[in-house]
């Protein structure tokens, strides 16, 4: 009476992950592996910046103005100190400022994408599952927002939020305002994709089976549909992370983002470009290369993920 034995081995989630086609294609894609390595190294060094960085560039006590404008790998003419990537006008070690700047950039990027993701998934699930007027309102709002460049939307939100924050909190709140602005400008993609996937999933018979036994719409959306719409979300989240890091850098470069007391990569590039023509190229070049490497490898990783997951999103 029993069906043919498919080998019996209860599998753990880890085993399934290692055995999956996704991991297999990953191991066969050099681009994906290199990008993943770059991203991991950069993230690791950003998280452990206080341990890795030779100096804390934001502790005035550790700074020596005499070290200003030291070129990379060259002993300073006055103090004899040598810096891996040189120093800026105030004698801060560029290598350390990059590590600390990357912390801000990554934190803002990840938090903004997370915020956009939560907002987008919620609105996408609701509009896809509930339909009707709710859907019309949410998706038309999304369409309208898409007609403006997202950087403009972010600047607008940033401006408004800054305006309503009391002056004494402004610098403190700047990072959170930045996260809010980038996140709000980026939820639309998540909502659209999740809505599309929800429309497909909600007509599948396992959802009908759940409706049949009287589960509430909330439970069906969270327990049944959400786990099945996450793979496309993962792709978008990765690509959005690259965009969010660039958006943050753009805003900071334009001077409306991270405050000078907490410089991100974008702030460093803005500061650096002032010295480019006076010959101190390293102040600009190294933060720029870091930003490029970070954004590019996250983006490549996202591209690979999209291609790898695509055959199963048919």
């Amino acid at each position, binding site marked *: *009476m*029993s*069906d*043919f034995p*498919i080998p019996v081995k209860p599998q753990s989630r880890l085993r399934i992950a290692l055995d999956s086609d996704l991991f*297999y294609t990953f191991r066969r894609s050099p681009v994906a592996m290199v990008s993943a390595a770059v991203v991991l190294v950069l993230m690791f060094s950003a998280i452990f910046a206080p341990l890795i960085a030779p100096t804390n560039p934001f502790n005035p006590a550790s700074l020596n103005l005499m070290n200003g404008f030291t070129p990379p790998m060259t002993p300073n003419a006055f103090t004899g100190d040598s810096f891996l990537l040189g120093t800026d006008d105030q004698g801060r070690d560029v290598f350390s400022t990059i590590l600390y700047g990357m912390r801000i950039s990554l934190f803002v990027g990840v938090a903004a994408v997370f915020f956009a993701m939560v907002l987008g998934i919620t609105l996408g699930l609701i509009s896809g599952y509930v339909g009707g007027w709710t859907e019309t309102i949410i998706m038309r709002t999304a369409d309208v927002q898409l007609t403006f460049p997202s950087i403009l939307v972010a600047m607008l939100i940033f401006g408004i939020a800054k305006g309503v924050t009391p002056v004494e909190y402004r610098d403190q709140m700047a990072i959170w305002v930045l996260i809010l602005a980038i996140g709000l400008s980026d939820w639309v993609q998540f909502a659209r994709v999740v809505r599309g996937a929800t429309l497909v999933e909600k007509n599948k018979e396992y959802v009908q089976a759940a409706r049949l036994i009287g589960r509430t719409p909330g439970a069906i959306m969270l327990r049944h549909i959400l786990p099945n719409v996450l793979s496309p979300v993962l792709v978008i989240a990765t690509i959005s992370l690259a965009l969010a890091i660039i958006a943050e850098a753009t805003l900071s470069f334009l001077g409306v983002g991270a405050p000078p007391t907490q410089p991100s990569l974008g702030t460093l590039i803005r500061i650096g470009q002032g010295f480019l023509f006076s010959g101190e190229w390293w102040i600009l070049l190294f933060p720029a290369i870091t930003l490029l490497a970070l954004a590019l490898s996250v983006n490549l990783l996202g591209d690979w993920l999209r291609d790898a997951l695509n055959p199963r999103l048919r």
Partner: protein
Amino acid sequence: MADPVLSIRDLSVEIPTRHGIVRPVDGVSYDIQAGEILGIVGESGAGKSMAGNAVIGLLNPPAHISKGEIWLNGQRIDHLKGDAMRRLRGKEIGMVFQDPLTSLNPLLRIGDQLTETMMTHLTISRAEAEKRAVAALEEVGIPGAAERVNSYPHEFSGGMRQRVVIALALCAEPSLVIADEPTTALDVSVQAQIIALLRRLCRDRGTAVMLITHDMGVIAEATDRVAVMYAGRLAELGSVRDVLTHPQHPYTHGLMASTPLASQGKRRLHQIPGAMPRLDAVPDGCAFNPRCPHATDKCRQAPLPRLSGGRAACWYPLVDEKVI
């Protein structure tokens, strides 16, 4: 006997996967004569469509023919590539698939599709081709053919669309038609119409037809001979009446006995234990041995039984097992 239209000799198709090579078609041989309908029957994963795709050169890489020969009207075609294969496909082989929409260009009027096909493969003028297009639609039973040549595919119902596909498959006067589950998507009443149409065309024109289906009823009514496939191999090959009423292979027998029969009322259905093995786990020896009630050690070891002279690829063919 005359030379067969299609002759397949020891054909194997292989697909390399990361778990090793799988063989969806494994050492299959059969012939189809002119004017004959050969049914290929089997459950999902038996390799019946893959064999048809190999004949028309439509294997999706990395699947490829690894062994064997395919002869069409005395010409060897299994090594043909690109243009030569495409010319042959339109001219000598007509195709009818399960979903008629995939075989029709949605942007072209059906009359134009018929005329184009005929002018590519036959040396006739446009006026002649247009005349023949109307005739072809009339022949497959489309009412008002003279007006309907100007319609687009979406303006037809499912059954009518399948008729158009059949007209298209036959308009270049091929010697072989491969019909892959042509009636599966259709309702019972329309299915009967399409089967009757296929049979009539085959008889009138002497076209050889390879009819691939999972439906034993369709096989019984439409075909002259039947090939039963299991796990990529031929289990049994013979005249449809012999195979269905007195199956010699235990698999064919199990298949027939597990089909609910109108004449037998509410008896308990016979069950074949288990399911067809996955292609990456075909057992040694006869692929059916783990499910077979008569299996012995001989069946569990290589080499596998082959059809040689006999009807069934089995060491212990059943005798006098009447099913219907």
